[in-house]
């Protein structure tokens, strides 16, 4: 990836789609990280991300149950 593309995402030019995306709340450094990967690596990264979210959800559910049972015993 050349410097021009790196700059495009890291310092979005005024009026560019990147500037609008950043204003919308997109973290373009993540997009840039993805663009440095091969397509298959991008899918593997996405998979890791989804697995991480699933783990967090499971932990939150477990902690919620623990809090609930603690509340019942008090």
């Amino acid at each position, binding site marked *: 990836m050349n410097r021009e593309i790196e700059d495009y995402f890291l310092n979005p030019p005024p009026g560019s789609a990147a500037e609008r995306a950043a204003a919308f709340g997109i973290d373009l450094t993540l*997009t840039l990280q993805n*663009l440095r990967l091969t397509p*298959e690596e991008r899918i593997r990264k996405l998979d890791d991300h*989804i697995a991480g979210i699933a783990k967090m959800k499971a932990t939150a559910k477990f902690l919620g149950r623990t809090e609930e049972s603690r509340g019942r015993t008090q």
Partner: protein
Amino acid sequence: MAELSESLIFVIEKQSKLLGRFGVECVIVGGVAAALHGAAIPTTDIDVCYARDQKNLERLATALQSVHARLRNAPEGLPFILDAETLKRGLNFTFVTDIGNLDLLGEVRGVGTYEHVVPGSSVVELFGYQFKVIAVGKLIDAKRAAGRPKDLIAIPELEAIQEAQTLQNIKPE
């Protein structure tokens, strides 16, 4: 393809290999196409747009039979013969298979049929097979046409990727 009981990578790998092994003419569209282009928004939606010529329908039907595909959310006992003729009579199908859910689109809303989706697509290698991936511009059109919040929030990042691609022809391969 969506709603994954197995990991996303497992489903994509198995389904890519299935479609590749049977030589099914198709284009990856939807959220996974966005990820292949570099978008960071998480997705578990894997959708494929397939060619509807007779030969491809036969290849697709054979591929689907090999993984015991059946219609998802169809009433129990609904008669369904999985062959090229049935695929020809329908358009968009949601299947459950031995290797996960598989969504097959005969037409992508906002873009059109396979013949409309293919021009401008990129070719990527996944798990040893080459696949076409819908062009970012057409993916944006599809997301806009779908119009759901989860589609619309993907557009700003895709537009940035599209603009970057025009700056230096970044393709997903």
